[in-house]
């Protein structure tokens, strides 16, 4: 039974995105790239994300696999899908129609929507084939939009670099998948995991696992697969960077959780080593790499590498608690990221975007609200209580400590102190230094709304953490329990 009402209902958000994406293709074909038509395209895209988000609530709450076991839905994955849709909505909404930045082509929205569709499929993947399909559906449009500003050499370079390295990582992932397939003869996650449970893991499977994890680590820009991140963040148009920073990471880290905690739950001690190594490398490279940066977008790239390192510490715990920690981490990450980029997008001089760190100097006296927002996000990303970022770190490191990974947690908190240095430097520029050159005062209401919302969530997170923690621990039960919890 491939198509029943049940399977249709379980994949409703994906259907909605697919249909709207096709509508957008038609609109892109018939509309010119005038302001007004761009507005219609954007409105349609936004309503697509909104409808898909509403459809999330219509999804069945119990876990089930659909389409012959190619995909599965459960409450944890559904929550992550919700986060992806919120992120995509923000990333799409906070780009004003008046800012061209080389993304004025209507195809831009089509590509983002297809990529979002890919992310939802990735999250639901329950088979090596559907995993790869979702991943590529996500990646290919992102390669294109990284290079969408054809007038900019840097954007083209970013796109090319992203494509080449992305292709390499896809290759690694495919190679890993083929090894796993070769040694088990299976592609379905349920079947593979029960195969491993019965027969144990042969070295071939373990090599496959390592390759698979490496491929996924590339997608979340974890070190040592992070090389593309600073260049792509810097080169791509800022709206694209905002999208990159917020959305794909959520999908990729959910997929990684799914692969590690579900697919390879029985050989956790094998992959934990790999994840711990990647986590430490990301935290260290993220913290030290950002110190020397002079470009805000590059700095945010290293910051996101470090954040992925912290989130990976939750995965490294290999427990349901760790999965819950990752869920909390990504929830805070999306708001801090959206808030920060809503400000970076507004940083313009004479209508042109600026993103040097020095452009921020004296921001507190010219744009107090923006500066206050950045202040909150920087302290939060540095993990200073009582802001959201602190609770995120608390729950991932709590899981790590509970799993006996105290050294990992210690490295984590020490790198977060090093990381605090460059977050503080932003605050120093804005609050301690004098105005260098003033920036435009053009603040679209979309950005201000997203900024206010993100500030509210980040500051008042301590009020939401209770219910969120309860929910995250509840949905994390979808992953098989380990001896560690």
């Amino acid at each position, binding site marked *: 039974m491939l198509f029943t009402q049940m399977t249709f209902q379980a994949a409703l958000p994906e259907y909605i995105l697919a249909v709207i994406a096709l509508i957008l293709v038609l609109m892109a074909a018939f509309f010119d790239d005038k302001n007004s038509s761009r507005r219609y395209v954007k409105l349609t895209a936004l309503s697509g994300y909104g409808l898909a988000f509403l459809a999330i609530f219509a999804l069945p709450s119990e876990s089930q696999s659909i389409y012959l076991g190619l995909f599965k839905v459960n409450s944890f994955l559904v929550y992550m899908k919700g986060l992806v849709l919120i992120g995509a909505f923000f990333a799409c909404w906070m780009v004003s129609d008046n800012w061209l930045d080389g993304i004025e082509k209507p195809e831009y929205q089509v590509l983002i929507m297809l990529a979002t569709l890919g992310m939802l499929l990735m999250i639901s993947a329950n088979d090596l084939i559907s995993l790869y399909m979702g991943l590529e559906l996500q990646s290919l449009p992102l390669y294109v939009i990284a290079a969408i500003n054809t007038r900019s050499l840097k954007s083209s370079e970013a796109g090319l670099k992203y494509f080449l390295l992305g292709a390499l990582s896809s290759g690694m992932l495919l190679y890993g998948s083929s090894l796993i397939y070769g040694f088990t003869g299976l592609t379905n996650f349920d079947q593979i995991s029960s195969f491993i449970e019965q027969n144990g893991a042969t070295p071939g499977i373990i090599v496959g696992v390592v390759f698979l994890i490496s491929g996924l680590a590339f997608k979340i820009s974890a070190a040592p697969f992070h090389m593309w991140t600073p260049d792509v963040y810097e080169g791509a148009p800022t709206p694209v960077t905002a999208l990159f920073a917020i959305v794909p990471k959520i999908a990729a880290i959910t997929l990684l959780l799914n692969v590690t905690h579900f697919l390879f739950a029985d050989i956790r001690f094998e992959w934990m080593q790999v994840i711990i190594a990647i986590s430490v490398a990301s935290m260290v490279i993220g913290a030290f790499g950002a110190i020397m940066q002079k470009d805000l977008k590059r700095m945010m790239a290293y910051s996101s590498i470090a954040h992925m390192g912290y989130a990976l510490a939750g995965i490294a715990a290999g427990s349901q608690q760790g999965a819950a920690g990752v869920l909390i981490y990504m929830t805070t990450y999306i708001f801090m990221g959206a808030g920060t980029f809503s400000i970076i997008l507004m940083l313009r001089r004479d209508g042109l975007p600026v993103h040097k760190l020095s452009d921020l100097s004296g921001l*507190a*006296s010219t744009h107090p609200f923006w500066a206050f927002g950045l202040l909150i996000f920087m*302290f939060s990303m540095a993990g*200073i*209580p*009582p802001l959201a970022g*602190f609770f995120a770190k*608390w729950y991932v*490191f*709590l899981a790590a*400590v*509970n799993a006996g990974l*105290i050294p990992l*947690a*210690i490295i984590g*908190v*020490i790198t*977060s*102190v090093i990381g*605090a*240095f460059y977050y*503080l430097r932003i*605050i*120093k520029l804005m*609050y*301690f230094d004098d105005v260098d050159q003033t920036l435009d005062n053009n603040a679209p209401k979309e950005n201000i709304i997203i900024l206010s919302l993100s500030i509210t969530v980040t500051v008042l997170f*301590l009020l939401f*953490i*209770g*219910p969120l*923690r*309860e929910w995250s621990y509840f949905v994390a039960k979808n992953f098989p329990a380990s001896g560690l919890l």
Partner: protein
Amino acid sequence: MLSSWPILSIITFLPLLGVLFILLASGDNKSSEHNCKMVTIWVSSFTFVVSLLLYFGFDPAAVGYQFEEQFDWIEGSGITYHLGVDGISMPFILLSTFLTPLSVLASWHSIKQRVREFMIAFLVLETMMVGMFASLDLMMFYLFFEGVLIPMFLIIGIWGGPRRVYAAFKFFLYTLLGSVLMLICIMIMYLQAGTTDIPALSNFSFSSEYQFWLFIGFFASFAVKVPMWPFHTWLPDAHVEAPTAGSMILAGILLKMGGYGFIRFSLPMFPDASLYFAPFIFVLSIVAIIYTSLVALAQTDMKKLIAYSSVAHMGFVTIGIFTFNEQGIAGAMFQMISHGLISAALFFCVGVVYDRLHTREINDYGGVADVMPNYAIFFMIMMLASVGLPGTSGFIGEILVLVGAYKTSSSLAFFAATGLVLGATYMLWLYRRVVFGRAEKGEVIRMPALTNREIGILVPLTIFILWFGVYPAPLLDILNPVISTISDTVSQTQLVVSSLQ
């Protein structure tokens, strides 16, 4: 009746209400700045008045926590919103609410730019300080303990002196590094005990091996905060660069967070490890007392001199705490409260002349007594209190610590007492160079006398310093019951250890 009110929550969050008012204040620059100042001074004074209810409603004889409030916060996780005070925390809350309006008053004219932000930072700082002392949940404690860094970083960095950026960064990163190690320890304790409730954790006995590591983690955080030698290097920088009000709060309250932490957490929760590490802490404290006193002697900057003297005085506090006897701990507590008043007053005294001459170099002054006789008197009282002259609060704290130290070891008391002599030396010498002599320099001669505002700040401080010096009973009565409980916890451990040997 009165006890049904959530007084502690009100005291903690009242300043945030002031922040709301300030955000609403509008109008042109001059008048809105004035409004901001007025809102801040009224809100912080009102907070102080409310906190007096704590003092009058407090039952010194009762064992355990009073004014307790407990609500669900993070459901099902053993982390709750739990406030309450006992004899240790209540005086600190009063000290915080008392010093905040005085500091605001101290910065009335000296803060000229971004007045609104300054007042907001100060009110947020007050919330963090009070909340930290009132927390009976380790998680909440940590939130406030770390949250203090945010406003303080801004206060030093925005309104500080020429090297403010360096000082602010050093302050922030240094204290953060200490605190994150404590965070890991909090996680371990939480995972062991299943709760972060402080009363529950105090009754939970951690195994000796765990205590050893947990003590080190907490020590990393508190030793930086106190600060103990050799973790004190952030302090002179932060003090010198911070604006007067910032220095007052930094010396008055923030340094006490470390000592408070030792008494609240290290002693009752890790008694074995405290005993084990006590000699080590004595050595560090003695070094702190003697070394930083000598360093203070060599200073040419008034603020730096007082900053180093703070390190030396806090050395007495750590000695007192780790003698584990009642006199020692009571002395340490008393010393912290009294030092909170005295050092805030001393930093304000420096601020007074700094506002007039814009220099902190000792050599630029001389003969201040000629032009500002009232100032000379106040400064003398503060200076003598800092030296520990009988009749001032400084004396009671130091003598109690010395008694406690003598009970532990006579050589410990001997070395600690040398600090008194050295302390007298550098303070008297500072006073001689600044106040005595003939006012010859033109700038000094033109210095205006103390204004009413400045006298208004110094008088309450002087009253309390002298009052506690003459009649320390009210404070000691509050301290004693809870201190004997803590001291008993450790001495029982001591007995167990010695019976095993």
